[in-house]
């Protein structure tokens, strides 16, 4: 730490003169000016600039016109939106969304009971924040809460089984964003422990354990999710004793979870491989057994390393839940599809308005998550370069 290049020596007399130098005044326009000069610096650059502007004009202008300028913002039924249609300016029919937002968020979940999904979503948000916010205390406990008590509490809240004293709401009434969230969160919660086991199994020295893990992971990663969903929907009932037919939502959840577990296993394996061998050796030298070594030394470090990968897995899982619409589950996309066929809202722009709403919903969620993942990656890289 005494070498002059170390950052710890920044306050040594050698660097003092630099600190007394008058700081350059802030130049807020410097970046902008440099950027503008960069836009026209050479003929090729100028051509690229013009090209980009032209594409933006042809793509963004119609989009902005559709979404905002020509859009209809209030009304009770299709009449309001058809009025705008007559003038030749096609714009989004937002009343279609605002009037049906309850259906898009909860499906046919009884209105009097909607405080239950609200409470579950709030709990979920709190729990995820506690587990992912880097400076929160007890993050491990929050992660455990997310994997074990939270799913049980949410299930009791949402379904309301007999003993809970709540009105039972069968899953065929669930729909919209609620189902999208339930499937993706069940997928992530189930795939974390399964993925850890599979990743450890794949790196095990026991040939049968390793072979079983590799076969499971490679089969699940080699086939499309849609095939797994068809399998869960059509084949799973065949594998169970005659007369046992699980709920359709449960079948889809099984398929999504198994599929996500294989992806998660590969992400976690990356973390296990990235840990220096010395960590394993040090744990072994302390006399720790296999599970002690994994749970107290290896996994805490490996899982922290792959938080960005886990979030990315969740992003693709979240997008992939739209596929359940193909096997007849009422997720957000299905509720939009069903609503757009309602004659009360039959206009030429109903479908596109619905898709625009869904696109914005998915974009906001996924973009926010990918920002978090990127920030976490930078943080981990910085931590890695310090040590």
């Amino acid at each position: 730490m005494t070498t002059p290049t170390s950052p710890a020596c920044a306050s040594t007399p050698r660097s003092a003169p630099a600190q007394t130098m008058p700081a350059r005044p802030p130049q807020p326009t410097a970046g902008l000016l440099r950027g503008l000069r960069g836009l026209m610096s050479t003929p090729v650059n100028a051509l690229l600039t013009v090209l980009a502007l032209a594409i933006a004009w042809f793509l963004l202008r119609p989009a902005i016109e559709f979404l905002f300028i020509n859009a209809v913002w209030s009304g009770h039924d299709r009449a309001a939106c058809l009025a705008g249609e007559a003038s030749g300016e096609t714009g989004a029919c937002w009343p279609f969304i605002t009037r049906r937002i309850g259906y898009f968020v909860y499906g046919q979940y009884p209105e009097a009971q909607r405080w239950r999904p609200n409470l579950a979503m709030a709990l979920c948000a709190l729990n995820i924040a506690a587990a992912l916010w880097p400076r929160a205390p007890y993050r491990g406990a929050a992660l455990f809460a997310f994997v074990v008590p939270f799913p049980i509490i949410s299930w009791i809240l949402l379904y309301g089984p007999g003993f809970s004293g709540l009105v039972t709401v069968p899953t065929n009434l669930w729909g919209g964003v609620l189902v999208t969230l339930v499937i993706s969160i069940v997928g992530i919660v189930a795939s974390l422990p399964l993925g850890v086991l599979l990743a450890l199994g794949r790196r095990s020295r026991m040939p049968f354990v390793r072979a079983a893990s590799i076969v499971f992971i490679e089969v699940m990663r080699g086939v499309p999710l849609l095939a797994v969903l068809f399998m869960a929907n059509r084949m799973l009932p065949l594998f169970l004793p005659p007369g046992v037919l699980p709920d359709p939502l449960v079948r889809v959840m099984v398929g999504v979870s198994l599929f996500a577990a294989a992806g998660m296993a590969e992400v976690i394996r990356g973390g296990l491989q990235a840990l220096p061998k010395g960590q394993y050796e040090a744990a072994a030298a302390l006399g720790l057994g296999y599970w002690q070594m994994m749970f107290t030394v290896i996994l805490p470090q490996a899982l922290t390393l792959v938080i960005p990968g886990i979030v990315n897995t969740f992003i693709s899982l979240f997008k992939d839940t739209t596929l359940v619409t193909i096997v007849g589950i009422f997720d957000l996309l299905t509720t939009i599809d069903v609503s757009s066929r309602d004659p009360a809202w039959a206009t030429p722009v109903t479908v596109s308005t619905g898709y625009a709403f869904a696109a914005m919903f998915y974009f906001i969620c996924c973009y926010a998550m990918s920002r978090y993942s990127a920030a976490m990656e930078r943080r981990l890289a910085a931590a890695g370069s310090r040590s």
Partner: protein
Amino acid sequence: MRAGQTVTTSGRAPRAAWWGNPAVRAFIWQALLVIAVISLFVWAGRNVAANLRASNITWGFGFLTEAANFDITGSLIPFRAGDTYARALLAGFGNTLAAALVAILIATALGFVVGVARLSRNVLVARFAAAYVEALRNTPLLLQLLVWYNVVLKSLPGPRQSIALPGGLLLNNRGLYGPWPVAAPGWSALGLGLLAALAVSIGLAIWSARRRRAGRAPLALWLLTPLVFIGLPLAAVWLMAGSVAGALPVTWPELRGFNVGGGVTLLPEFVALVLGLSLYTSAFIAEIVRSGVQAVPKGQREAGRALGLREGQILRLIVIPQALRLIIPPLAGQYLNLTKNSSLAVAIGYPDLVSIGAGPVLQNTGQALEVISLIMLIYLALSLLTALLMNWWNARMALAER
């Protein structure tokens, strides 16, 4: 287990109880796993047998050779009612491959352009490329496909108001129409000529590399390769047909009555699927290209400049070869993802493997177990093949690394 092994080698091993022996414990764990897996399979198998008995379905792949009673329109491999179920699945697989191959070509081209654009010093271009990537990869592919199919293609004008695109293409709400060759000797000559050109250009590239390694000036491949690719096919056509002008007959799409006739028709389902898949995947490829180029150390460019290479040479001889080594493995993964994602064709009614298999074939035969296992096996074979190719490629690259 691993920890136990290191500890017990320290001399305590002889006195340790038998359950402390790592080999014994490993054996017990594995035996338990094997017993669990086998009993799970036996249990599931007995359930399957009971369920099939209850629904009067006999297990087996005999149905594949039976005649199907449905048609498939717009299939690459023609299929009509009366053909076998096996041929229906084959037709579906052909359609999957056709859509995936076209989409892979478009996605790669777009992805490289956008990826390089993201690194542009032109702020506007870089931002624009970033917005493209973020918008496409943060929305579900299924939603994008539905938008292309239900919004963009459905809102196109009818056949009588077809939009004429450059190259003789016609676009309307019934599909994309393009010119198509009419069978003639000239075309076979052209095909042979192209094959010959490919062989000759590969030979030239090898020769040039050998010359460079021997210290002599490499061949001017940038000039020779296009010459070979233009010259050889033209010469072949001229030799076979006597002239070039009339030897390559083509039918052009044109409006006939209320519909477009002539040429080749790409159904809107195919167009929507290829557009959706290629745009979605191009966003991921762009990110791969960007990170691959960025991963080439700055010192490499500076060293190139110090050697007196021009910017184009630096890019071609130093940056791209090193970036490609990082780009190609994840690129193969994206190609595989695209092929698997083509199963979303079900949602827009394009007859791919999954929509034919899980659709009419399964509905008509009821053989859920066999059909879905077959579909999964085919995709699995594709992905294992890709994995083998990539392992071979990686091994080759590792050797080239000194």
